[in-house]
């Protein structure tokens, strides 16, 4: 049944105790990994081991626990760097989530307003333009919107075609010589679209704009190599890639991080401090004020080990298969309409849909009664909803532990929904 997949899904499932959970008298079918993934025992165990063996604050200590904690934390950084093909671990900044990572970038521009000697790449004002797309998660829209509001720059965006793809026809009008930065989503969390990057990065280079990628939904699901992508920065988040909450990643090119003013300030990000004046450490320390998510970094490294053991290519293949099966099965449901690409090409295993006139809340509730966890609502992508004229959708999303059988259960349960509300 899982022909295209090289994952031993049953073995994978055995690593996730929560998948044994029963909802009422039904076994849980967790189809909400786009919101947050489940965590394998390996991740929980790595964090517990760290906490019970080496827990200490990092960087500022010479004692054994402090040294071990520092090695573990910096080791996690190196592990992340390796995983995304970063040239240097010091290009990896730990944040609390994707959202903070993107805000960190946006605040680099905003804080540059106050600094006459700021690097020109971060100088933004009236006449300058910032570009996003209409399919952004709010995390990659509002920070830029606020930035434009505060600096007087103009926010522009790339639209969406009816098929749920980026409208790239008029790219040269959207991205112009006035564009200072383009930040766009790699894999859209509502539509499931996998966006091609080369055309946008090429145009960005042409006009000399910085280009960043919201990789929250790509890094967990496919091989991502920052050098190949040719972007300037990417953001992603631990809890969507089998890791813990409380940790995210900003990767940015070393020279960019060097040029950026600090964002959060406080301990561990300084060189010297007096009451009158502070000078700052080099990146990544410059952007990691205060005690970082230490145990969470250990957990994220364990999650990456787990993903690498499965193999990112295998994960991609497994999800391609899931996407194909999901699309095929859902298309067969009467009254169900898919929002997003309807073919499993350039597409993740995240499928949003509307179902007759039944409100997604009601759909989700009935599915939950059948043990099936899907997400309902606007998925933090209200502009996408508006683009497709809906208030909300029901969204099923698959990951390494999901099976065809769970999709069959989803389709069957939709029959039940229809019975109650039809």
């Amino acid at each position, binding site marked *: 049944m899982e022909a295209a997949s090289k994952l031993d899904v049953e073995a994978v499932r055995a690593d996730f105790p929560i998948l044994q959970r029963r909802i009422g008298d039904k076994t849980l079918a967790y189809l909400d990994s786009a919101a947050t993934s489940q965590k394998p025992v390996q991740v929980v165990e790595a964090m517990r081991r760290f906490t019970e063996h080496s827990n200490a604050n990092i960087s500022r200590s010479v004692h054994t626990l402090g040294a071990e904690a520092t090695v573990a934390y910096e080791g996690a950084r190196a592990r992340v760097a390796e995983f995304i093909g970063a040239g240097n671990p010091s290009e990896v900044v730990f944040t609390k989530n994707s959202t903070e990572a993107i805000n960190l970038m946006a605040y680099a521009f905003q804080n540059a307003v106050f600094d006459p000697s700021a690097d020109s790449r971060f100088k933004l004002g009236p006449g300058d333009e910032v570009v996003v797309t209409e399919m952004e998660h709010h995390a990659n829209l509002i920070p830029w919107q606020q930035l434009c509001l505060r600096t007087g720059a103009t926010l522009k965006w790339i639209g969406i075609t009816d098929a749920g793809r980026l409208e790239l026809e008029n790219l040269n009008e959207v991205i112009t010589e006035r564009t200072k930065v383009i930040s766009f989503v790699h894999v859209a969390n509502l539509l499931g679209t996998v966006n091609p990057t080369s055309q946008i990065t090429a145009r960005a280079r042409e006009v000399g704009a910085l280009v960043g990628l919201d990789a929250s939904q790509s890094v967990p699901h496919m091989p991502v190599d920052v050098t190949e992508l040719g972007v300037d920065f990417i953001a992603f988040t631990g809890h969507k890639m089998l890791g813990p909450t409380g940790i995210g990643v900003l990767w940015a090119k070393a020279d960019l991080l060097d040029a950026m003013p600090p964002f959060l300030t406080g301990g561990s990000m300084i060189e010297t401090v007096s009451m009158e004046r502070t000078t700052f450490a080099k990146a990544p320390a410059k952007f990691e004020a205060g005690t970082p998510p230490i145990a969470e970094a250990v957990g994220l490294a364990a999650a990456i080990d787990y993903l690498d053991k499965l193999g990112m290519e295998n994960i991609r293949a497994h999800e391609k298969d899931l996407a194909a099966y999901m699309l095929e099965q859902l298309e067969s449901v009467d009254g169900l309409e898919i929002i997003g690409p309807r073919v499993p090409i350039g597409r993740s295993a995240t499928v949003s849909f509307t179902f007759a006139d039944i409100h997604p809340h009601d759909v989700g509730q009935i599915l939950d009664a059948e043990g099936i966890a899907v997400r309902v609502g606007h998925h933090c992508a209200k502009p996408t909803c508006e683009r497709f004229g809906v*208030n909300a959708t029901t969204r099923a999303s698959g990951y390494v532990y999901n099976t065809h059988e769970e999709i069959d259960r989803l389709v069957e349960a939709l029959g039940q929904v229809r019975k109650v509300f039809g």
Partner: protein
Amino acid sequence: MNLDELYQEVILDHYKRPRGAGLREPYEGESHQVNPTCGDEITLRVHVEDGKVADVSYDNVGCSISKASASVMYELINGTTVNDALAKLAEFTELMNSKGQSEGDEDSLEDAVAFAGVSKYPMRVKCALLGWMAFKDALVRAEASIPGRTDA
């Protein structure tokens, strides 16, 4: 989850045949409420006359719970005194915050006791309260717009 509890027949009935729906004139207060977690919306108008809720009219998009709740509310408060309506609001809000511990007083809340089961589902409580919040807000606005009235 016990589905029957949540989707009692009476809720489904109000959902499918909402009472008092549509926006009407005259009105003194109007409120627009959104449930940010799901995008449900309601626009609701209140017409107050002689200390009475002379009309409650509304237009809404939402799930069965939020639509049925607005319909049940219409039945409960339309034509009552403002003070009675506020009492119902308080009683219904209390029921919704009861976390499944209360059954509600059927004499007073009538069809609205069907929502008792909803109070167990924190995510849905907001849906059930959306219309009521709009009413509360519209009433405040209505009273602000009627000179000389400061009580109730």
